[in-house]
């Protein structure tokens, strides 16, 4: 009741939004409003598979510039996800509810995955509050969660963080809730970029299960059975 009543109150009381909810354009003339702009036609030489991969890249994996906790400039698509298996999530420094649980879980996942992290799978945590979370804050949190070399913390310009957040599906359909950072989405997005395998799991799920889920991205050819 605790958080639902607050959520409902906020949702009911403040239905405003910086980004208006797109309730659904119907007429093709209205449709130039995708966040990703008009796309050029894919060259005919590309296979269906290549076209599909480009489409995902264009719509969901924007090549925005980010800065790592080490102060290194990177591009989201080119440097972080292209040709890799990855986990992606958002957090912020002074978040006292969901983030500590998710980040502690990720620390446990990192431990369970061992040497695979940074070699077969790359973990990325993005700050939701780039205005507040300086590189020092990111580094402090990395230390707090014993993040190893395969787990990178990143920041970017606020607009770019917003673009990334929406592109990789960390947003709500209700604008008021979407704006409320205390309700931010605690999922872990996972994927294998070249194989176009993408899904997500709750960051608050059991670490062992999250680790197993991430391993499917490294070894998707694995079967799984469990006796009852």
């Amino acid at each position, binding site marked *: 009741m605790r958080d*639902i009543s607050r959520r409902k109150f906020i*949702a*009911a009381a*403040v*239905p*405003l939004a910086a980004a208006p*909810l*797109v*309730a*659904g354009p*119907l007429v*093709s003339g209205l*449709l130039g409003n*995708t966040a990703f702009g008009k*796309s050029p*036609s894919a060259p005919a030489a590309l*296979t*269906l*598979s290549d*076209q*599909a991969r480009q*489409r*995902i890249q264009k719509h969901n994996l924007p090549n925005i510039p980010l800065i790592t906790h080490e102060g290194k400039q990177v591009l989201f698509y080119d440097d972080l996800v292209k040709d890799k298996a990855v986990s992606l999530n958002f957090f912020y420094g002074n978040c006292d*509810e*969901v983030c500590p649980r998710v980040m502690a879980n990720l620390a446990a996942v990192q431990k369970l995955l061992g040497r695979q992290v940074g070699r077969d799978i790359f973990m990325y945590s993005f700050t939701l509050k780039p205005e507040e979370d300086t590189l020092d804050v990111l580094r402090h949190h990395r230390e707090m969660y014993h993040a190893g070399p395969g787990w990178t913390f990143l920041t970017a310009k606020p607009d770019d963080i917003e673009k990334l957040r929406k*592109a*990789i*599906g*960390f947003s*709500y*359909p*209700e*604008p008021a809730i979407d704006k409320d950072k205390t*309700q*931010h*989405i*605690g*999922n872990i*997005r996972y994927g294998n970029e070249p*194989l*176009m*395998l*993408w*899904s997500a*799991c*709750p960051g*608050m*799920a*059991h670490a*062992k*299960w999250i680790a*197993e889920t991430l391993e499917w991205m490294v070894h*998707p*050819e*694995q*079967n*799984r*059975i*469990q006796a*009852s």
Partner: protein
Amino acid sequence: MYYNVFGEKVSKKRYKEMCAAAKNRRELIAAGLTSRRELFRMGLLTAGGVLIAKKGLSAQTVLTAGQNVNGTSVKTNNPPSSGQNMSPGTNQNCVPGNQTASPATRPFIQPLPIMPVAKTVSSLSPAPTENPNTAAGEVRAAPFQAPLIDSSRFPVVPGVLYQFNQRQFTTSFSPDLPNQTIWGFDDGTGTRSPGPTYQAFYGKPQLTRNINSLPSITEKNNTGFGMASVTTHLHNAHNPSESDGNPCDFYTNGHFCDQYYPNVLAGFNSDFAPNGDINEALSTLWYHDHRVDFTSQNTYKGLVGFYCLFNQFDTGDENTGFRLPSFPQFDIPLTFADKVFDPESGQLVFDLFNLDGILGDKFLVNGAIQPFFEVSPRRYRFRLLDTGPSRFYEFFLTGNIGGTGSPTTNPFFLIGTDGNLIPVPIQVNSVRIGPAERVDVVIDFTHLAGQTVYLENRINQINGQGPVAVDSQLFSQSEPVNTECTQVLGPTTPAVKPAGAGDLVLQFRVTGPKVKDNSLPPSQQKFYSLPSTVATPRVVRTFKFDRLNGQWSINGQFMDCNTFRFTVQQNSVEHWLLTNLTGDWTHPVHIHLEEHQILSRNRAAPTVPVDQGRKDVTQLHPNERVELFFRFRDWLGKYPIHCHNVVHEDHAMMALWHVEPTGDNVLVP
């Protein structure tokens, strides 16, 4: 007495306010009014930022259609009426945010595909074995249960065998779109999606070898979505767990699973031995991929099909038994699916990064976009299945589209809910179904000879949350549902659009030859009785469907293949309370193994026809508490409960449980 979703008593006044506030919000969002300035200008927002709770407020009465307060076009889900549209039903529905519209396609230019009846095979090589044949590449969790109960009735190699290969293949959804590379089932006669329709019979156990012959996952030839490791669930079958198609048992290319379908009535190995309870007879089932975390993608990519189960009453022959229209000539399975196509390439696309639910702007019936079906002026049985991923439908039979005068609404008969025949057919104007639900209906075209009528979806849905204003009118009948909300909001609500303003999904041309009709009129039919629900439950369990920081949850926990949350005692009665804490979301909740009956919605007996039959999916509306009656019989093992908005399911709104000889008493699993 009025209750909020937590089961706490609230005043009538407060309850009305809750209903009104929820409706107001939905209408404002539907009308595209989300900015503070617009709301303030309309007097809907106080200076303190609080939305005014004004009874009966409707943004749509304030605004003229298609205009917002600034006189510019509003992005709403109310398309131009197809009654005034030369090409009805095209590009009508909403396109979810962040998504472009599919290319235009012409409606009603291709005939309705009818899935062929699945072909049996005379033998399987290697022969099925009681224990999983891992050496040959089988991936199965446990030995077959049925032969262990009675090997003479249920031989390890039963008399009816199928071999289904799941394959990638190329097909066309519309002549206006390029060919599509998707996944389907091949019974030996070629790959298709939806897969071939099983024609199964009670008393004839059967076995399907489900072989994964999809392209290897690691070949880098994915078409953009889909996980080529699979597990095929037979939805609503009273089946042993090892053959159920559990989401956590999946296998990749080159492997197979032998699935044993005993085709036996619930109770056969318990309170109704040896043949089971005839009142638990199942008719319309379906099979679909259930791979954990990837079910939405894999079913969207084509891995669905029908399984029709017959017996001595529901015979498939209109001259015998209940005398329902004969299968397969006049008994037609219909799969409904909504999909999106890339505006540039015309290729099928899937929003991989969505957490809420996915809506398509193209409506497919049996794998064709808006087909037509030529029928004879007689009675037909249709088995309607919503394959999702996330769309709800309210189907009306609409006539006089594009003619002079208004479109007409033609009644028909509801005969089954979730594939289970109801005690007596009920005449209705519409049926509402959500993802994974089925309804069986009988339509009599006799008096429509020469006319063109449509199956029209009139429900208003703008995103994965579910229908707009679901609390106001659950089921559009001649008499509106008598709830407090309908009294507050009036019986006509934006949840259901007027005739001709919805999506024309399927066209019936009643131009076929006059043929003999030996089926019995539904008004004279009587089917099975409902099993008794008076037994005292051994335990009453509560399941809260919620969203915690964007994470879909059941009782605050998440799907985990390694965790079984509770144990049901074999051959016992339980009540399950499903509550919905997710303000505006509707969750179609599915429970494997046993179907259920709805004892109450918000403590009142169910009133709408689809709630009164036997169910395996129950729509859990916003701020609802639904109480279900279960008898868990005969089989042992592991099964899930989950939301069947498959996007929610894939994001962990699922829990595993066991049936064992001794159960536990975990009340909030």
